């Protein structure tokens, strides 16, 4: 039973990651109708906002001393510049809090990247065939990846959560199980809560603001809204920026869970498309729901007693579930009719 509850927690946690990534994608793909293969790259760029900020904060400057290294060269002794400005203790704390700090840092950066991307490239492709969109965004994804690889290397980069969040929360004793039977890491709980807040914020924004209403109207009938004298193009640009920021924030918060490398976006690309389509094209709620369903299924499939009975099920469960859902529900969970069906 405790194992079961643990896997539900895992499922919610994984699901929140999938939902968050799919949310950004479905804003662009499910609603603007652009097949954006660069979405994974946006997720990756978000993660590298964290790396950049943490690198910047802990950028080492010479202290003036020189030390002989064990491999025979003489290197100057260095320390993070921030020690010089804030003192060692405060400086250390600021570096330690790089991940939460980069939430603030990444929002403007990611919106900027999103807007730049839309203005510079994507807007010329709204009316082009999906095939062309695939080619251009895939090309862009590769270019973005390679730029990151050029500066940060291919290896994973450790980006731990602040020391205050290390450790786990004991759910078990809270609900009457043995102590330590159901423990869950603080950071993952934070990630889950953060996702819920972000998802809720995006929904509220689209539902309750005039901007959101116009965008929703524009999604269903771009030309009519255009005729009303509303500059829908500009709003779509902002929408793209928001989607990029959502993807980026998903990446920022994910860094302590999986150390980022330049390739992480590609690893998530396929799954995020599967989540969006299983959720149903054009449905934000569907994407979120699909994220949680697939995350939970994946968690259960990785349990030992499941694997003993169905070896390899953990390898395929997401795809199997996707096939079953798409065959029983023609437009995914909550898809709108006629969106990317031809």
């Amino acid at each position: 039973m405790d194992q079961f509850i643990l896997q539900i927690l895992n499922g919610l946690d994984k699901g929140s990651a999938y939902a968050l990534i799919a949310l950004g994608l479905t804003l662009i793909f499910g609603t603007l109708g652009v097949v954006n293969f660069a979405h994974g790259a946006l997720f990756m760029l978000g993660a590298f906002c964290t790396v950049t900020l943490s690198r910047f904060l802990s950028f080492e400057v010479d202290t003036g001393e020189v030390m002989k290294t064990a491999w025979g060269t003489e290197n100057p002794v260095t320390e993070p510049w921030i020690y010089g400005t804030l003192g060692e203790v405060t400086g250390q704390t600021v570096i330690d809090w790089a991940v939460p700090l980069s939430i603030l840092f990444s929002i403007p950066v990611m919106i900027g990247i999103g807007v730049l991307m839309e203005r510079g490239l994507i807007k010329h492709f709204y009316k082009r065939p999906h095939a062309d969109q695939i080619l251009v965004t895939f090309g862009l994804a590769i270019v973005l990846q390679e730029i990151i690889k050029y500066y940060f290397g291919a290896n994973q980069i450790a980006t731990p959560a602040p020391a205050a969040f290390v450790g786990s929360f004991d759910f078990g004793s809270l609900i009457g199980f043995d102590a330590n039977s159901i423990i869950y890491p603080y950071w993952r709980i934070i990630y889950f809560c953060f996702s819920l807040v972000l998802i809720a914020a995006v929904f509220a924004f689209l539902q309750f603001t005039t901007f959101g209403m116009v965008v929703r109207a524009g999604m269903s009938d771009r030309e009519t809204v255009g005729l009303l004298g509303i500059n829908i193009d500009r709003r779509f640009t902002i929408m793209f920026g928001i989607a990029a920021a959502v993807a980026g924030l998903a990446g920022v918060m994910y860094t302590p869970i999986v150390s980022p490398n330049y390739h992480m976006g590609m690893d998530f690309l396929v799954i995020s498309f599967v989540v969006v389509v299983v959720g149903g094209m054009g449905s934000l709620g569907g994407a979120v729901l699909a994220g949680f369903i697939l995350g939970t299924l994946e968690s259960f499939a990785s349990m030992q007693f499941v694997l003993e009975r169905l070896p390899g099920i953990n390898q395929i469960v997401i795809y199997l579930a996707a096939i079953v859902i798409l065959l029983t529900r023609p437009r995914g969970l909550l898809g709108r009719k006629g969106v990317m069906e031809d």
Partner: protein
Amino acid sequence: MSKTNVTRRGVLKTGAVAGAGLALPTYLAAGGHSGFANAPGDSSVTLGFNVPQTGPYADEGADELRAYELAVEHLNGGGDGGMLSTFSSQELSGNGILGRKVEYVTGDTQTKPDAARASARSMIEKDGAIMITGGSSSGVAVAVQALCQEAGIIFMAGLTHSNDTTGKDKKANGFRHFFNSYMSGAALAPILAANYGTSRKAYHLTADYNWGYTTEEAVRTSTEAMGWETVAAVKTPLAQTDFSSYVAPVLNSGADVLVLNHYGGNMVNSLTSAVQFGLRTAQANGQDFQIVVPLYSRLMAKGAGANVKGIFGSTNWHWSLPDAGSQAFTRSFGTKYGFPPSQAAHTCYVQTLLYADAVTRAGSFNPCAVGEALEGFQFDGLGNGPTLYRAEDHQCFKDVLVVKGKENPDNEFDLLEIVEVTPAAQVTYDASIFGGELGSCNPGA
């Protein structure tokens, strides 16, 4: 159509066809005079360095490439000579290989068997490479080794740790210096028993592919021989990035040790998850919970950051080894590139030297002669103590290092500390236990 596999590019390049201006076509018939594929010309010889340059192992590949460039420099008499002076066989004198200047071509394996073979074939067919070396996974090593066997080229494996490379998939033209899963298990088990006791219950997470299987098998067998019990062994998809659903159940499974049969990104991520779930600080069965990583590399340790502290594992070589060979190599590499070499760099450097030495001793580039010179070759001074290139399976037998994550690293390269140098004798096994057949050497012509 005349039958020939001989590519004459090497010959042409070095000007053997001097009649450059001749308008008359020259038909090259079977290259019978040399008797083997890609026989080099008189002035230079081309080696093929096939390493991952894209994909998750690109950094490891880059380090391998640095080592190869260093080896070529040393073979051609440049730099400080590195391990040439400490190598027990003093045949190499810095004038290339058999008096021919060493040149090289590079390629990208992408850590995919298909791409690696394409790259290797291009080196053989287009560039006339006489030997192929490199790689950072067993899938690639096994694939390229088989290709070299077919093409009649010597393959000097880079980083490949699966038993299969010199076990069931061994080939007469292929040679491995790196250690393997079996040796990791054999070296680790006594240290684990000494540090964690003999009444431990282990939980294995195993990457779901060939290397994972052989590593799990090796560690299980050797730890169970010490009295440990295996509670569970769960296979994890190679593409997995978040291991929470695999790690979460471990604490309540009755196990008190977690063995991560993962490499590269898998290991970094599973270890990160394990530490997040508090396994490193937990208690189980009245003992401190422990984590073990059978195969360590410095790049992995770097990716996992502080999570590796105090965690045991094995490695082929480490730059902090005190012997003269290791020191010479580390100094030479550090001077050129500004940081110490990785174990992948070391094995690649050594393999290049070993090949050059074997050619020199054999007096020929013929793969069969080279293979004969390597088989049963005993040497020292290349960093792992006295070493044997066993004739039966073309596997090197040498000391294996048991290491653990350093508690207080001095710098970003000083992440592992050596706990034990397990002598070669303790990790040697019977050549027949993994099956497979070497076949006979193929000179390619």
